[in-house]
């Protein structure tokens, strides 16, 4: 998936006369990314369609029921975005989520006083796992797929070791933290919005984030420029792990009696959200905000299909179609396809 390279360059190159002009001084504003626009429009459309065809899917109760889970998925998708931006893919999502959930519920075992220690422990484990994966990938040059696959198995071992496979109820404080409402929205939503905004800000506005994107776009060029390539790669896995851990702790508060393998269902949607958000699986520029919105999109899609009352499997097919379209939007040369279909079509000005 050439991300938006092919598209943008195709557009610019065809206007050969324009590129001959010297740079125009004055405001040539940085546009919001294509992925962000696409997912904003798609999410908007989905809510309109839901409202028109299946208002129940947007009823107060079902909306508020959907939001906490969308928030959890959004935080995970933001983490997955960081890894994908470095050209990787993180298969350790289920293990990280599950172990965070288990640590946050098993250690306190309903005792609120033990919650802070448990949360600290969960972050400690996440930090260690992120450092291990990041070290193996950035220093030893191991394949991200293999490394995160192995790490996931180790984390599952940890999950079973701690829990023995039996769930325990969440503590009341954690439940309040995650699901209590403020201005009639669940807290989890605020967590997700704050985290997404913070990561989005760092990636897009800070020196570190800008260099992080440059390393992902072309590690060799980044090295030749003198950037600390390995440190950025390592950081991707560490921060991703910490984000998964946060999502897991939220999830532990949302689900009153979470299972030991609560994270299992989050791997595919997290990758799907990243792809739908327009971040190329080849790495480089990415938009955490778009990924988080895509998480909302996928969650509402679930809700919509669920209230339609059709077979739940339709959800998978719609997701697959959305994913295929989401990739094709960026990889297929639509201009060429259109010219091929209608050779005489006048050239539209690039938007």
């Amino acid at each position, binding site marked *: *998936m050439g991300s938006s*390279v*092919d598209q943008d*360059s195709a557009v*610019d190159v065809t206007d050969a006369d324009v*590129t001959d*002009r*010297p*740079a125009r001084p004055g405001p*040539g*504003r*940085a*546009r919001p990314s294509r992925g962000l626009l696409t997912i904003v429009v798609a999410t908007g459309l989905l809510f309109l369609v839901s409202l028109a065809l299946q208002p129940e899917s947007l009823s107060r109760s079902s909306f508020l029921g959907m939001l906490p889970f969308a928030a959890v998925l959004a935080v995970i998708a933001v983490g997955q975005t960081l890894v994908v931006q470095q050209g990787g*893919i993180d298969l350790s999502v289920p293990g990280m989520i599950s172990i965070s959930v288990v640590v946050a519920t098993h250690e306190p075992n309903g005792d609120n006083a033990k919650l802070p220690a448990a949360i600290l422990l969960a972050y400690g484990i996440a930090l260690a796992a992120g450092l291990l994966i990041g070290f*193996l990938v950035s220093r*030893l*040059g*191991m*394949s991200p*797929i*293999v*490394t995160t*696959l*192995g790490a996931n*198995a*180790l984390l599952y*071992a940890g999950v*079973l070791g701690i829990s023995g496979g039996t769930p325990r109820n969440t503590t009341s404080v954690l439940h309040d933290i995650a699901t209590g409402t403020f201005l009639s929205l669940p807290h989890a939503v605020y967590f997700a919005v704050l985290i997404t905004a913070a990561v989005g800000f760092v990636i897009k*506005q800070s*020196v570190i984030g*800008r*260099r992080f*994107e*440059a390393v992902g776009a*072309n590690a060799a*060029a*980044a*090295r*030749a*420029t*003198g*950037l600390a390539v390995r440190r950025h790669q390592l950081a991707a896995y560490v921060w991703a792990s910490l984000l998964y851990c946060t999502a897991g702790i939220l999830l532990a508060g949302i689900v009153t009696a979470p299972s030991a393998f609560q994270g299992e269902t989050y791997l*595919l949607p997290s*990758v*799907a959200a990243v792809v739908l958000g327009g971040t*190329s*699986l080849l790495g*480089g*520029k990415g938009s955490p905000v778009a990924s988080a919105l895509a998480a909302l999109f996928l969650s509402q899609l679930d809700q919509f299909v669920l209230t339609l009352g059709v077979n*739940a*499997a*339709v959800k*998978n*097919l719609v*997701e*697959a179609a959305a*994913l*295929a379209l989401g*990739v094709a939007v960026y*990889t297929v040369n639509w201009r060429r396809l259109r010219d091929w279909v209608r050779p005489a079509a006048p050239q539209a000005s690039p938007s």
Partner: protein
Amino acid sequence: MTATPEPSAPPLLRLVEVGKSYAGVPALTDVSLDAPAGVVHALLGENGAGKSTLMAVASGTTQPDGGHIEVAGETMAALTPALATRLGIAIVHQHPAVLPDLTVEENIRLALPPGRIAGPGGAKAWMLGLLRRVGARLRLGDRVDELGVADKQLLEVAKAVALEPRVLILDEPTAPLGADQVRVLFDQVRQAAERGTAVIYITHRLAEVREIADQVTVLRDGRVQGSGPVAGFSDEDLLRMIVGRGVASAFPPKNAGGADGPVALQVSGCGGTGFHDVALTAHHGEIVGLAGIVGNGQSAFLRALAGLGTRSGEVRLDGVALSGRAPADRIAYMPADRHAEGLMGAMSVRENAAVAALPGLARHGVVARERERAAVEAEVGNLAVRTRSIESNVMSLSGGNQQKVVMARALLAAPRLLLADEPTQGVDVGARAEIYRILRDVASGGVPVVVASSDAKELEGLCDRVLVFSRGAVVEELTGDAVTEEAITAAAVGANVHRRAEDERRVRPWLPGLRRFAVGDYAPSVILALVILTLGAYTYGQNTRYLAAFNITSVLTLLAALAFISMGQTVVIMTGGIDLSVGPLAGLLVVVASFFVNDGSSGVMMLGALALTLLTALAVGGLNGALVRYGGFTAVAATLTLYIALQGISLLLRPFQGGYINSDVSALVTAQVGPVPIAFLVAVAIAAGLELRLRFTGWGRRLRAVGSDEQAAHRLGVRVNRTYILAYVTCSGLTFLGAVMLMAQIGVGDPVQGVGYTLSSITAVVLGGASLLGGRGSFAGTLLGAALIQQILNATTFLNLSQTWQYFFQGALILVAAAAYTQARRRSRVS
């Protein structure tokens, strides 16, 4: 030296008044060249003189605008690469088209028609003889990845020689070779000529022309400057023709102060890969040039100065010793390969230009947008970068403007030293002059500039001091008025330095045999087998029921399903792809079968159902392949889409468990000989068959070739798209076999079974030693990898270990194995 051709015979290859222009700029003008049988014809000229274009025309890669080509007296309407090969025209490329993950033998077999490899003593003896003839001290089993540049070049020569072409074109073949190897190569060239081959020999070096060639043609600026018997020209004549007498008005005035300024950069005793014993002193205000023919160490030295790659010796910048990679704001490096190392492709001009200077444009770590924009606008204006806006994608710019963006990045960071490797390569004439001006401005501003260039004229016009490299060493240092194109070229082409012995043969730290085994394809298999035996023995020691017939049957039956699916995964991973959809596909096939293969179903119906499931599998494989090759999807994106869709279809067909599989079919699938299931024996047989095909057939070589180096495979005539798609289809076909096993094991249509096989199969393949980068792996290894996974699941129960340990062992194994294999491969690589 030559067989006298019959006077009446027409030249084997004849180019008549060939012309070629690129975008209105002539690359060749009325160039004629004869290559008669038995004659070595040298083609001499500088970089950019048109030699490569001429040879691309001669080999059919490029179509000329004017003139025509005659082969053995016959005028060719249009020459294509395939036609050229059929007519007996062979080229030894400057950058060998060899496949790193394949062995020497496999590279030879892939490049030659099968009928060619035969002789007394068999194919191996023939190939060994071939390698001996070109002076390559190689073993057929050596992996090309582990060869040095020289050996790769000799392999490329061997492939061309083996074709026994009528016309042999060699493009600077001696650049990476040592003295002995050059002598052997020249013997080969002479022998070929004696056999009546027409040889065209492209070179920069006058000494080589004297030694090997009968005829010489000199090209400059796409025109023939002179042609005739070598004996008819003196060295001075040839030099004059190469260099010409052009007026270089495009250059800015040089440094007035000469070498009077304070010393800025002091390098002594600097050595590294490709260069040695380099000393350099650069003063403030100076531009220092590194001259030499491409690949003689000047670029490697420049990279080492930039901190890319290791070096020995001392480098002092303004009196401070440097070690390792200096930060972006101390030393700016402009790479020669803009696309690989210069540009961040998906990003805008602004993002590319600002990346090194960001800390200076930020407040508390946050980039100040307006400051950034103003700085980039100013630099872009100063360098006269032509772009629609600074937000345009950097790839939409012309080559010269892209180079200016790289330059803007370097200058915005306000470095203390500027290093530029071939700064005007692929840059049009107008932009060149501007780049020269900018470099001079930088130097005048007190920042020393070091420029590596293969264009002597450029160095003459630009530099205050020039170091001429030949075969990794500085052979001449020119300063002031002595910096002339003639002096530079004379030093570069006249030098008779040979590469040092260490560079020719790489150091072999281990026992050769052990080393070769450790980096081979079967080391993982042997290690896995040992682990399996040890674990088995230990478990048996703890619990003798472990080897009871019942347990053996059950483990091997389970193993068969995983083995089939993992072997399919191996095929795809060998191409550098990955198939995430195998698990859900296996599940779907069982679900489909559960509708038809029931107790009471007729035999015809059941056979039809099997055919249906097989077709479904093959269609899914085809779709995966098509998305990857024609849809622009990455393998992960394509197969993840199918993963979700297939799971959806399974759930749609069977929301709940249902449809019991025919018990006779189950019995048939799980039939056994003694305690061993027949299905397991089938899996072993298929693994063995695939392994043999992988090593010894065209299918196997092509599969690994596309995974190893897609571009090189394409140049060697491999049909790349077809090979990829076939790999995905084969994978699905093997998954079908796995699904047949699952039918019997699960016994019922279940929408969620099978999904887990995706990750298990990848684990098995990785344990088996395949590289996810493609090009290597083995089916035997995959089978053993699958066996170990299954054994761990089984043994832990006999050892009374909990599921925790199952996960722990699996995770630890895959990490340890992948780390070990990755390290072994890294060490084996020479670069």
